[in-house]
């Protein structure tokens, strides 16, 4: 017995398997009998396995602060201030697990409780001045700070981000963009201080992405100088209106405007839906959308308007107005352009969603990779310690490429934000195309990344407190709201089509959207790809450009063949959907890659740049691994195999940097989850007692 006791104290000493099993079983037995209280206190020090923080064994080959600055891009200290603000308040539900504090909403609360908590958190942040200037301050600095705060809040919870997004970016944004000075004066400051709570009623039961088809109708009564808003049928009820079910006092209503029997198309109006104490206004009916698969802290509602009367000045009249005597006036004669002008604010939402998706991926990866650096499974040989999950090449192959993808998305997201903040009337088209593409691709990627991370955490990933699994439900909606991803990607292909046709017609060079490569000769892929070639950014760019160029040509040809058979252009687009999908994917991959290359180019030679170079190669290679390269014959079967081989090599080279790469995300420990830290202590019997 004496000898065995010594071995217990030094588990690294040789110990045969049978004995180890006996020991484990003994521990299980002892621990499963709470009847002997004398045993209980000593259990935590009696774990069969030791948790060893990954920081003890993994080094940092580069400065993670510098990397974080590169990823976050701006307002790093402001983000941290806001993180601290959330961590220090009981409202953000701090819980101690495994000796660490974690903040996360209690998703076990009822829908109504979650909504109430979300609202209280907003009030807390409001009182501490977090939203100061969100609508009343102009300029790049103010807009970027707003982005930073919004991203930090979104790391705590999606519901609070969406409640803020609806109030500030949709309601507030509509007033800023569609309204004129008297609207700004009347509403913006009160909105910023939450004296009123806004929502945004665009989607209807019968029409979502096709906003031009909405059925709500507004007429003008020149006798009283009022607009009359009406929901004519059930399919015209406003649906999914965030804030409508409980809190909002005012809404933007999107409606057809009918003046003297002529439909002037979709316009936006302000209507009050509740009074200051929360009673629903006359002629308004509101119902709840009910419990959802996520985002239950947001009170989505449905609204019916029963000939609701609003004063004439409630028409947001930046592009069109109705005179007191009932004449329709618009500076934009073309209804298509008028409609496009209306949709401009939705771009801000898309930028936010794209960026938010990247941060959720960061949370998922930081958790899954930290777990993979502390969790062991199976010994390769008897009597050897079990192998760390991340030391399995297969596990690396699952997670490390997603890390590369997330880095790529970060740089692309920073570019998108800058594009938006520096917007001009000339850049509207680019913003529309790039935000549509990035929103769709990032949110799809995010769902894929979260699912992989959930599985990589095994059963622990299923616990809500560990976040990764739960985040899937919370962020699933991102592929649908502010434009269905599939529709957005079709718009990307259509825009590329238009660029191609215009360049051909006017016999002019391609300019913009990164299509300049189309003006150069077609790149050639070497017949035998070596490791050096595969890691060369020029080759990587060539491969991605080749695919985009060829698919664009194919798509245009396919559409024109349909048209040659007498079909309309719209029908031709519908029929060529497969090429359209592949093309929009090719555009997105290339555009994202380009931003990665540009970010890397800003760095001086050093370890940071070296690691980023590996990540850039990995991102390119997983894009080139896409089936499209074989489907359309851009890669030979041999070359495709070489790409695949190289991916495993880069993954193993990046393995030593895994911890540093997720630490560089700059997400405070409290915003990750127990499984990312000491998951043994977090689950110990003594933690049950507390």
């Amino acid at each position, binding site marked *: 017995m004496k000898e065995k006791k010594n071995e217990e104290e030094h588990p690294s000493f040789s110990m045969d398997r049978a004995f180890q099993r006996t020991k484990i079983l003994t521990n299980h037995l002892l621990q499963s009998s709470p009847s002997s209280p004398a045993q*209980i*206190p*000593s259990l*935590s*020090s009696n774990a069969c396995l*030791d948790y*060893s*923080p990954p*920081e*003890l*064994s993994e080094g940092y080959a580069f400065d993670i602060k510098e990397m974080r600055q590169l990823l976050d891009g701006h307002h790093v*200290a*402001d983000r*941290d*201030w806001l*993180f*601290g*603000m959330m*961590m*220090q*308040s009981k409202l953000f539900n701090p819980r101690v697990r*495994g*000796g*660490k*504090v974690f903040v996360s909403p209690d998703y076990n609360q009822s829908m109504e409780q979650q909504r109430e908590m979300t609202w209280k958190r907003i009030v807390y942040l409001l*009182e*501490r*001045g977090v939203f100061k200037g969100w609508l009343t301050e102009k300029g790049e600095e103010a807009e970027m700070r707003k982005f930073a705060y919004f991203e930090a809040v979104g790391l705590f919870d999606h519901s609070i981000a969406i409640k803020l997004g609806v109030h500030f970016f949709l309601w507030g944004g509509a007033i800023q963009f569609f309204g004129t000075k008297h609207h700004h004066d009347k509403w913006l400051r009160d909105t910023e201080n939450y004296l009123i709570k806004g929502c945004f009623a665009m989607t209807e039961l019968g029409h979502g992405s096709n906003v031009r088809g909405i059925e709500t109708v507004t007429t003008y009564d020149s006798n009283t100088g009022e607009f009359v808003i009406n929901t004519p049928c059930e399919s015209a009820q406003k649906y999914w209106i965030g804030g409508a079910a409980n809190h909002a006092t005012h809404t933007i209503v999107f409606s057809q405007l009918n003046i003297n029997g002529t439909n002037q198309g979709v316009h936006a109006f302000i209507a009050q839906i509740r009074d200051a104490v929360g009673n629903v206004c006359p002629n308004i009916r509101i119902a709840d959308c009910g419990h959802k698969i996520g985002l239950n802290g947001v009170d989505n509602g449905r609204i019916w308007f029963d000939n609701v009367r609003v004063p004439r000045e409630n028409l947001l009249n930046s592009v069109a107005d109705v005179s007191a005597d009932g004449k329709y006036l618009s500076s934009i004669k073309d209804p298509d352009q008028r409609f496009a002008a209306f949709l401009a604010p939705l771009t801000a939402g898309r930028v936010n969603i794209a960026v938010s998706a990247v941060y959720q991926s960061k949370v998922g990866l930081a958790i899954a990779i930290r777990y993979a650096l502390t969790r062991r499974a199976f010994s390769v040989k008897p009597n050897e310690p079990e192998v760390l999950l991340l030391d399995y090449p297969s596990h690396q192959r699952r997670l490390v490429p997603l890390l590369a993808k997330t880095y790529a998305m970060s740089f692309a997201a920073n570019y998108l934000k800058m594009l938006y903040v520096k917007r001009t009337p000339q850049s509207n088209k680019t913003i529309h195309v790039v935000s549509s593409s990035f929103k769709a691709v990032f949110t799809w990627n995010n769902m894929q990344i979260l699912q992989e991370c959930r599985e990589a955490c095994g059963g622990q990933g299923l616990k809500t407190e560990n976040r990764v699994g739960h985040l899937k439900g919370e962020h699933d909606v991102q592929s649908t709201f502010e434009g269905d991803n599939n529709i957005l990607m079709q718009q990307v292909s259509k825009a590329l089509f238009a660029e191609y046709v215009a360049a051909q017609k006017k016999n002019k060079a391609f300019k913009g959207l990164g299509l300049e490569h189309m003006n150069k000769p077609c790149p050639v892929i070497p017949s035998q790809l070596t490791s050096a070639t595969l890691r060369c950014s020029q080759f990587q760019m060539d491969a991605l450009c080749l695919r985009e160029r060829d698919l664009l040509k194919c798509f245009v040809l396919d559409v024109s063949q349909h048209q040659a058979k007498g079909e309309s252009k719209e029908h031709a687009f519908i029929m060529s959907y497969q090429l359209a999908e592949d093309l929009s994917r090719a555009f997105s991959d290339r555009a994202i890659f380009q931003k990665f290359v540009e970010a890397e180019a800003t760095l001086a030679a050093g370890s940071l740049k070296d690691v980023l170079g590996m990540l850039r190669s990995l991102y390119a290679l997983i894009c080139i691994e896409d089936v499209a390269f074989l489907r359309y014959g851009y890669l030979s079967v041999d070359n495709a195999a070489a790409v695949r081989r190289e991916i495993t090599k880069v993954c193993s080279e990046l393995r030593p940097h895994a911890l540093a790469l997720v630490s560089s995300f700059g997400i*405070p*420990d*409290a915003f990750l989850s127990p499984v990312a*830290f*000491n998951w043994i*202590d977090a689950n*110990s019997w*003594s933690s049950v007692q507390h």
Partner: protein
Amino acid sequence: MISRLLELFLAYEEDPNVKLVILKGKGRAFCAGGDVAALVRDIRGDDWRAGAKFFLKEFTLNYLMAAYSKPQVSILNGIVMGGGAGASVHGRFRVATENSVFAMPETALGLFPDVGASYFLSRLPGFFGEYVGLTGSRLDGAEMLACGLATHFVPSAKLAMLEAALCIVDSSDPVIISSIIDQYCEQPSLKEQSVYKRLDVIDRCFSQKTVEEIISALERELVHKMDVWISTTIQTLKKASPTSLKISLRSIREGRLQGVGQCLVREYRMVCHVMRGEVSKDFFEGCRAILLDKDKNPKWEPSKLELVTDSRVDRYFSKMNTEEWEDLKLPTRSKHKLPLYAIAKL
């Protein structure tokens, strides 16, 4: 003394007969902090590295205590200031009494709350840590227990019995040790005027992003009604070194998101900059005015908060660009299984 404590703690960790470590003061204080006056004399001999060497040892001890594999019970029967806080708060158990007086008075001296204070202050409830760290406000035993700086409150009359009970414990299990201290424990009540009853004001004001905004938030509180405590707080902040206030606030804010090791590494960089005096000599001026000449009238340079720019503050957080200087290297603790409480205790 720090060297001696280091030796003892390292030896006790290896010694199987030692189950826990009791740390107490000799005389009226637990520990009133490092001998700053002696330090300043040393540095005046133009050797800031001597100062750096002192802090290197002290911070190493702080880390050892934070990551110690056996429970440390500190009996805080008297003054606990600065370095005294560092030698106790990182340990597992801190026993306050009716004689306890806690303070981190560094900003009045031109220094900043060091010894890992950016770790433990930032983990106090709400923004109480910012308040305690920036103002140097004194806390009594009841307040220490309420905010978590102390884990237990035992009347001084019972200390002898507590010690005797602890000396015969044959276990390093914190649950067992805690239950022993519990037997002598009392629940003190906060005095009527306790700052801990002003947490709402403290949270509103000390959560602000900058020192300037904290002061104006406090001044806004005074607009509606006079409040002696708030005006005293404002006065205290206005008397402290502007540079100290700014680097202290930033240190606490960064510390909130860092582990105790990272906090000590960062604080070591900061303290070396302070000792070297290239950015500001406030530390020497503070020591002169408070400890040496005792005229209590330090002339800070820069003299106003708005003159302490972000880039000045940044310099305290950068590596020293001088030869033979290295970041603080923390002793590895992987050999001993880190106890639960080594990661976070407050």
